[in-house]
């Protein structure tokens, strides 16, 4: 509650609230991290503060969010997210939970603006969105999904990290259109095949191709006549060719066009024929 009051009294737009054990809370605002003013009535962040934030965020039900906590984040109503840092508890090499939580990063949800004129007209073929980190790949993907969906296309979204739709209790907190089915919580490969089997989609969207398994599931989709929409970390098609995973992606010819984003969040279209 003290944090809420302090944040309400803070005069600038806030992107993140950071709580680090033993240090004063800070806010990221206008690209700068600043200490939340002391006049708000609380000093250093304690372990109890961190645990209480997590308990509140999970509605006092840590078990119900254990899957995403294992991945290091929690989604809140409104699409806000809490990133968790601490000591990972491992079993058989797999993360089972996070203990001794030492920092939390509460990211305030906001829809960055992106130009979507004529975007729908271009979405007729399987499309890959490329761009460096922070260039707006996920935002553009979400915009594409929303446009397709609102135009009446059946879109299925495999949102394994919950960044695209930011579902909370199964309800997307971000606008992904009215004809979009969102599957969260699973691994990308399983989710894609699940959606293919169960939802009869026209389009399947995934955020960030990172593993060979992702390619296999997408290859299966392409044989079933489903169009793909995905993002990948690369600054352009040339960089795709320099990475083994993406080289295979190109060889499979799963995508017919690429939207390449630059750091100014503008994109241009490239054919992959």
């Amino acid at each position, binding site marked *: *509650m003290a944090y809420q009051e302090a944040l309400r009294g803070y005069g600038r737009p806030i992107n993140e609230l950071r709580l680090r054990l033993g240090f004063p809370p800070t806010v990221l605002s206008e690209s700068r991290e600043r200490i939340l003013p002391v006049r708000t009535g609380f000093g250093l962040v304690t372990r109890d503060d961190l645990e*209480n934030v997590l*308990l*509140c965020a*999970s*509605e*006092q*039900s*840590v*078990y*119900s969010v*254990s899957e995403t906590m294992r991945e290091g984040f929690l989604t809140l109503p409104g699409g806000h997210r809490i990133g968790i840092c601490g000591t990972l508890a491992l079993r058989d090499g797999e993360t*089972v*939970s996070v203990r001794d939580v030492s920092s939390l990063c509460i990211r305030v949800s906001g829809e960055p603006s992106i130009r979507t004129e004529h975007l729908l007209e271009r979405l007729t073929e399987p499309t890959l969105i490329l761009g460096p980190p922070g260039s707006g790949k996920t935002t553009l993907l979400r915009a594409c999904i929303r446009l397709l969906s609102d135009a009446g296309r059946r879109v299925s979204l495999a949102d394994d990290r919950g960044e695209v739709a930011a579902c909370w*209790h199964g309800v997307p907190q971000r606008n992904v259109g009215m004809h979009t089915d969102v599957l969260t919580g699973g691994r990308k490969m399983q989710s894609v095949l699940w959606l293919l089997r169960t939802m009869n989609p026209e389009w399947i969207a995934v955020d960030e191709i990172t593993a060979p398994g992702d390619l296999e599931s997408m290859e299966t989709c392409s044989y079933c006549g489903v169009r793909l929409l995905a993002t990948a970390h690369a600054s352009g098609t040339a960089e795709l060719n320099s990475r083994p995973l993406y080289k295979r992606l190109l060889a499979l010819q799963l995508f017919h066009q690429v939207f390449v984003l630059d750091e100014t969040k503008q994109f241009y279209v490239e054919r992959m024929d």
Partner: protein
Amino acid sequence: MFKWLGLICIVAASSGVGFGYARSIRRQSAQLGHLIDSLGYMRSEILYRMTPLPELFETLSGAENNAVGLFFSLCASQLRSDRTMPIPGIFKKSWENCRTVCLSPETKQTLLSLGMALGRFDVDGQCRAIELAEQKLRREQETLDKNKRARCRGYEAIGICAGLAAAIVIL
């Protein structure tokens, strides 16, 4: 005439008290049964659906149309209104506000202990804590049921006899 009427009233009142005690024992046994059922349901929900506690309490309040249901309904509304309140505190407050609950202090203690674990651990931890609470409550119910008939009859007989004895003394 009035004297006889008064005597009848004394016997009836005394018997009423005895029957009231007997009824509260039957009610306690029934409520304990409902609570055990609710915990079983809670365990399944957590194990198979990982339902968060506010939603779970809402479901339990609808599933049990009795004092136990009311208790969980109060828990749900408490949790919704104050998301920072720990579960043992929520259980305690709801218990105090739920006047129709007639369970023993041991049952209350078992619930408060369960509240210490609820929500804080993973699914396995939750299930183990609920199982433990269920076992304790079952043992309590067995003890209660073993003596229930004898105790109920005893209270009823004492009520009637005390009324009659008072009537004889007055006569």
